[in-house]
């Protein structure tokens, strides 16, 4: 491996990177190898009630009636929670950073928008009784036509309370980037190269399924033992949903048996805490493996159209991108993911004319949300595949094509930010060295810090 190049930091401070490049033991590794690491499910309380969810059997339907009586007759079933029990039923996870409107019910009222959506919660003395109770609840639906395709959804009848099948960004139906004049760029270009890229949803499949136990305390507080990756999102949303001050709630967590973004949503905690408050007993709500795979939010499916105007010498003079993020039925983190996707365009390249429309679209699919670099990962797949397509079209070396277009310090990006700390040129040069590839002298001499004369 090449020595890590710390020269970029040399002007800022002493290059005292003691940890970078060294192997440092994890603080929790000893607990892991002895089995002493305490995950939320390892903390148990006597008298705990088990919560099992009745889930929608349709992708899109009106709820005509929910009959909970048969469930209440199952020995051991203590209570069934419906939307009527939730103090503030409508929320959106990123509300506290200004995202709105509230678009998701904790428990649905008159309709379900995806298959597997939570309908009502059965609390029972044992897991078996809770499962049996959930099986006995009779939900009557009137099926509605579902929409599964992002582009179809853009022109379909709105199915959300919000009134549009897309998230509204400051009055627009998408996140937009306008830089230069793409039409002029396309007119000047020697070649027009256009491709479509698409991904499927990806499930994180953490080895530990999502779950929590909510325990009422003598002090009147509720303590929630959770494997959430986002303790503060969870605390804030719980306080809003339950209509209690923050200091009535305590979250214990931080030990996560695999998350990868899949445990950032706030789904299980508010309902478990509500159950605990209404029964004054600890309530455990843990996803089964099947629930984890079917209803926990995956990485969003995306579709991108990339159209490039390219000169014979490899310069990309115009890039137009239309990007769709499939948020599924509710926005969760996808509105933010779409903004991230837009911010990432047009890739690490200096292109004088850029036009981006990034849509966050609602469909009747499982809501998507956070996952490792969400918003960026699929965009990168598309952008870099497109770079390879352009190189192939021109008969050019793909590394050299990237170097020709690489952004450098001092360039103005499509978002009108000045580039600083660029390293793409150096990274490509290092990759060439490590793979034994010889770059032409003019590419070997390039630098991110200054453009060649």
């Amino acid at each position, binding site marked *: 491996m090449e020595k890590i190049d710390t020269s970029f930091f040399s002007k800022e401070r002493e290059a005292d990177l003691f940890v970078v490049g060294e192997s440092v033991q994890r603080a929790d590794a000893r607990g892991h190898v002895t*089995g002493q690491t305490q995950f939320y499910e390892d903390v148990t309380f006597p008298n705990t009630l088990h919560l099992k969810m009745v889930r929608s059997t349709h992708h899109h339907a009106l709820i005509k009636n929910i009959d909970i009586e048969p469930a209440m007759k199952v020995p051991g079933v203590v209570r069934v929670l419906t939307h009527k029990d939730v103090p503030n039923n409508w929320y959106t996870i990123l509300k506290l950073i200004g995202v709105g409107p509230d678009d998701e019910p904790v428990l649905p009222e008159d309709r379900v928008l995806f298959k597997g959506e939570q309908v009502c919660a059965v609390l029972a003395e044992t897991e078996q009784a809770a499962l049996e109770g959930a099986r006995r609840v009779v939900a009557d639906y009137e099926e509605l036509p579902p929409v599964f395709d992002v582009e179809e959804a853009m022109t379909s009848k709105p199915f959300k309370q919000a009134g549009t099948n897309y998230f509204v960004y400051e009055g627009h139906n998408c996140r937009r980037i306008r830089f230069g004049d793409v039409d002029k760029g396309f007119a000047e270009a020697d070649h027009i190269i256009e491709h479509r890229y698409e991904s499927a949803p990806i499930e994180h499949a953490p080895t530990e399924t999502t779950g929590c136990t909510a325990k009422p305390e003598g002090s009147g507080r509720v303590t929630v033992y959770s494997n959430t990756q986002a303790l503060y999102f969870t605390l804030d949303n719980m306080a809003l949903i339950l209509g209690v001050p923050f200091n009535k709630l305590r979250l214990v967590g931080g030990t996560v048996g695999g998350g990868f973004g899949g445990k950032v949503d706030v789904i299980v905690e508010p309902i478990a805490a509500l159950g605990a408050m209404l029964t004054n007993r600890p309530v455990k709500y843990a996803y089964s493996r099947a629930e984890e795979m079917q209803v926990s939010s995956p990485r969003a499916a995306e579709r991108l159209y990339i159209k490039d105007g390219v000169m014979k010498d490899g310069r990309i003079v115009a890039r137009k991108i239309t990007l769709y993020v499939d948020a599924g039925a509710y926005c969760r983190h996808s509105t933010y993911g779409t903004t991230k996707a837009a911010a990432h365009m047009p890739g690490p390249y200096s292109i004088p004319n850029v036009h981006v429309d990034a849509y966050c679209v609602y469909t009747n699919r499982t809501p998507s949300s956070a996952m490792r670099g969400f918003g960026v990962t699929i965009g990168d797949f598309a952008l870099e595949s497109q770079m390879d397509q352009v190189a192939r079209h021109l008969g050019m070396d793909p590394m050299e094509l990237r170097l020709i277009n690489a952004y450098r310090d001092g360039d103005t990006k499509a978002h009108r930010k000045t580039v600083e700390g660029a390293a793409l040129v150096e990274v490509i040069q290092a990759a060439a060295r490590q793979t034994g590839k010889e770059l032409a002298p003019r590419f070997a001499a390039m630098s991110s810090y200054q453009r060649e004369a």
Partner: protein
Amino acid sequence: MKHSVVALTVNGAERQVLVAPGTTLLDALRESQGLTGTRRGCDQGACGACTVLVDGKTMMSCLLPVETIDGATIDTIEGLTPMEGLHPIQEAFLEGFATQCGFCTSGMIMATAGLLARNPDPSREDAVRAISGNICRCTGYEAIIDAVLDAAARMRAAKRDKAA
């Protein structure tokens, strides 16, 4: 439902466990015995997080009705840990950076213990096969396979030292 009493030797101690019909060994260990080091990942024998030794053999405890193993000897991660320091397998996993979130680790280590009990000098292929029922989603398999082989080497060396 009528409960029954099952006798188990758990980490060297004789235990009487009162269980409902169909109770799995995993639930008996975690809920009756408080041995939470054995993890629950899928409850369907797909992930290996609940791997323990039953009469010296690696088994997924979530698939084993405890009534069917009356009289068995069970070893879990808690029993592997010596009073002082760590077991060589634990040392190998720790020093080899073979843990990340840690959720699969107990199962991986018990699968390794089962392998090394029957084969003290495994090939890399043997190591891969031994952990093939254990899923790590943090994608640390290479480090884990290295740790299994390192553990085997440490245990062989300890045996040689003892013999000398």
